């Protein structure tokens, strides 16, 4: 009962401290909210800046196909009405001007259609399309490259059809005339026109099936991000609240408490319960606010609760252990900040939104308490059952017990 009184007194102090409240709620919500806004959370979708494209079309006609210019078709495709929301096209008269526009940051990417572009479709000369891009730009040039690659495949395919037909005719000992080649290219060109519907229409050849229930891209991004931040800041809160032990030691109130009839283990248990209480409130509030503010679907209540419990006990155990090694509050923030940031980084709390991570990072995360807490909550978010979450939660419990055992040894030595 006395332990509960001590815990209540500490909790009352924590919840009146702007510093603790900032780490509990303000900073994790701020750090989640900014990317949510950045990736179109309030705009109902990501509406990126238009990519500025300078195009120079140097393409020249060839004898085999008078009146046909592949470069003109590419330019028309880039100017397509459907792309006007994402691209701003400026036509240039010379390659040097198109490149200069990128160098001078008036354009994000320059598309250079070479003089022999059409010719290369009829002979074996190489005439690559050149994309000259601002190296600091990321998304815009990638969009342009994708559009051009899809367009270029149409030309490559028609040439391929001619090459295959020509090779087969030669193998049969038959001639393959220029007129037949042109006819074949036109046939393939007509087929390419229908390809878009075959790939994206209601009866597309690819039937897409989503494993997730999220419909909003911003929510889909923010959910894993908030798990990472919740875990990251929970460890800060665990350490900051456990700091009250050192604070009271410095002020002499702990020594006075130890001289009362209350056993030391009861006092220390009360302190630990206060840390657990603060973390429990933090996690419940963050989960509730995250769901309400950002529409995050955390998963079924029981697996989420088990994952949250795993986080609370490891963050509390880790915080108390960290503080048991410190001598003064002056040391506290730097050491605590360093340890929490390093283990948080290794545990994957900052990399939740990145795909295809190096396998080594995943292995390293298994050696940190944050890594296991992340696993438990991520499994719950992906629709995992309580049994699927229980493995990670059990690992959290084991880590918490280990941390507490180390803390007990250190604190016993310190407070006798």
């Amino acid at each position: 009962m006395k332990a509960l009184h001590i815990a209540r007194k500490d909790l009352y102090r924590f919840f009146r401290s702007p510093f603790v409240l900032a780490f509990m709620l303000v900073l994790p919500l701020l750090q989640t909210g900014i990317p949510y806004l950045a990736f179109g959370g309030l705009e109902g979708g990501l509406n990126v800046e238009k990519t500025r494209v300078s195009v120079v079309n140097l393409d020249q006609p060839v004898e085999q196909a008078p009146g046909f210019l592949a470069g003109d078709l590419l330019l028309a495709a880039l100017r397509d009405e459907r792309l006007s929301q994402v691209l701003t096209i400026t036509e240039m008269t010379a390659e040097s001007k198109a490149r200069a526009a990128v160098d001078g940051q008036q354009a994000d990417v320059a598309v250079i259609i070479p003089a022999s572009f059409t010719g290369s479709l009829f002979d074996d000369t190489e005439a690559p399309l050149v994309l000259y891009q601002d190296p600091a730009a990321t998304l815009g040039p990638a969009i342009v490259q994708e559009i051009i690659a899809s367009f270029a495949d149409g030309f490559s395919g028609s040439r391929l059809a001619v090459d295959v037909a020509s090779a087969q005719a030669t193998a049969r000992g038959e001639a393959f005339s220029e007129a037949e080649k042109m006819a074949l290219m036109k046939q393939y060109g007509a087929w390419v026109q229908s390809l878009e519907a075959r790939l994206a229409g209601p009866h597309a050849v690819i039937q897409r099936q989503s494993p997730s229930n999220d419909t909003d891209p911003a929510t889909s991004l923010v959910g894993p991000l908030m798990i990472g931040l919740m875990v990251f800041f929970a460890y800060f809160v665990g350490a900051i609240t456990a700091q009250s032990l050192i604070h009271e030691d410095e002020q002499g109130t702990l020594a006075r408490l130890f001289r009362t009839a209350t056993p030391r283990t009861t006092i220390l248990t009360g302190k630990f319960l206060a840390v657990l209480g603060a973390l429990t409130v933090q996690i419940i509030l963050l989960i509730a606010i995250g769901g309400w503010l950002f529409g995050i679907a955390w998963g079924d209540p029981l697996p989420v609760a088990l994952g949250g419990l795993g986080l609370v006990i490891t963050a509390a155990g880790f915080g108390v252990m960290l503080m048991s090694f410190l001598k003064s509050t002056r040391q506290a923030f730097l050491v605590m900040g360093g340890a929490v940031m390093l283990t948080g980084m290794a545990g994957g709390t900052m990399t939740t939104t990145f795909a295809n991570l190096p396998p080594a990072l995943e292995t390293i995360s298994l050696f940190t308490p944050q890594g296991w807490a992340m696993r438990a909550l991520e499994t719950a978010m992906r629709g995992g059952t309580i049994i699927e979450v229980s493995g990670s939660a059990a690992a959290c419990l084991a880590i918490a017990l280990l941390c507490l055992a180390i803390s007990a040894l250190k604190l016993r030595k310190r407070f006798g």
Partner: protein
Amino acid sequence: MRIVTLARKDLAQIARDWKSALFLLAMPILFTWLFGLLFGGGGETDPRLPVGILDQDPAGVLSSHLERLLEASDAVRPVLLEDVPTDELERQVRDEKLAAAIIVPAGFSDETLDGQATRLTLIVDPNSPAGQAADRGVQAAVARLLGAVEASRLSAQGSSDPAAVEQGLNLAVDGWLQPQVDIKVERAGLDAGYDGFAQASAGMIVLFAIFGLITPGYVLLAERQSRTLGRMLTTTATRTEIIGGHVLAMFTVGFLQITLLTLFGQFALGVDYWRQPLAMLLMIAAMALWTASLGLFISAISKNENQVVLIALSCLLVLGLMGGAIFPLDMTSSTFCTIGHTLPTAWAIDGFQDIALRGLSGAAVLLPAGVLFAYAALFFVLAVRRFKFE
């Protein structure tokens, strides 16, 4: 001269605490390395997204061709799967073990070659960036596969000889591995190719220059709390000299930190910051002066150490995240990008990238450096107005 003496005292205090080095150097180096890896730096592992293939049509020719075309993709790499139930595939995609998974149904080859519309199933999260990229990679490979089928059909000229069709198909798929129309991507500036470290480094330098304010902020606050600042006013030192001494110390810490981090970028990560030494020195000076003014402002409005930490962290999050230190601004929504570009952090990143990524001349950094000097003046004026010696 007194300004220098006071600054030397602050610097000695900071240097005595080994933990300062953790935040000023060790952390930014570790974070640059981590984010560089995440942005595709290092280049040792296959950066392509893993896409599972469950082939339920093993006797058909098209599934093996699809696998070859996926293998040739720049965006995705095929991972062959055997006897995996659909719900397990969904789980692997949901858990991000795979960016997507393709199910090739039984009879897919024969029916497609017969001109029937048989559908592949693609399990993919349309809302995740990895899912979207994998979808586009798979779609490009499927388009090429269908193109190869069409090319072989056209070249067979109505012949129903399966051997001729198969031979045509093989030739067409071989052709797709080296398509006729090539796209050559060139990067402006240094033409060093894409480098994740170059993308991550400037942002991390800017981020940790703000984080590094905590220690000098502590020093100034400790002087006010211990009433040393007030006592100094009883000496012949002027207010300007006292404030100037602290600003000079903060500026020196920032200047040294950013210089060391750019040298680390230059020699350890191969980011060519020092190709324009004068421009680089100007950018570092502008950045250090802005962070020093911000540090003075934070110390001026903070009443205790916790407030120094909180305000510095809030500045780091708001200015860093919104200025493009973690994710490039051109990936964000148009409104966010416009707001982000007004912040000093965005200008600082622009200036560093103008030199190290875009390879521009020294004159290019005059504007970003000028904006940083203007922000430095603004924060300095605000700090001096709020500064209290007692």
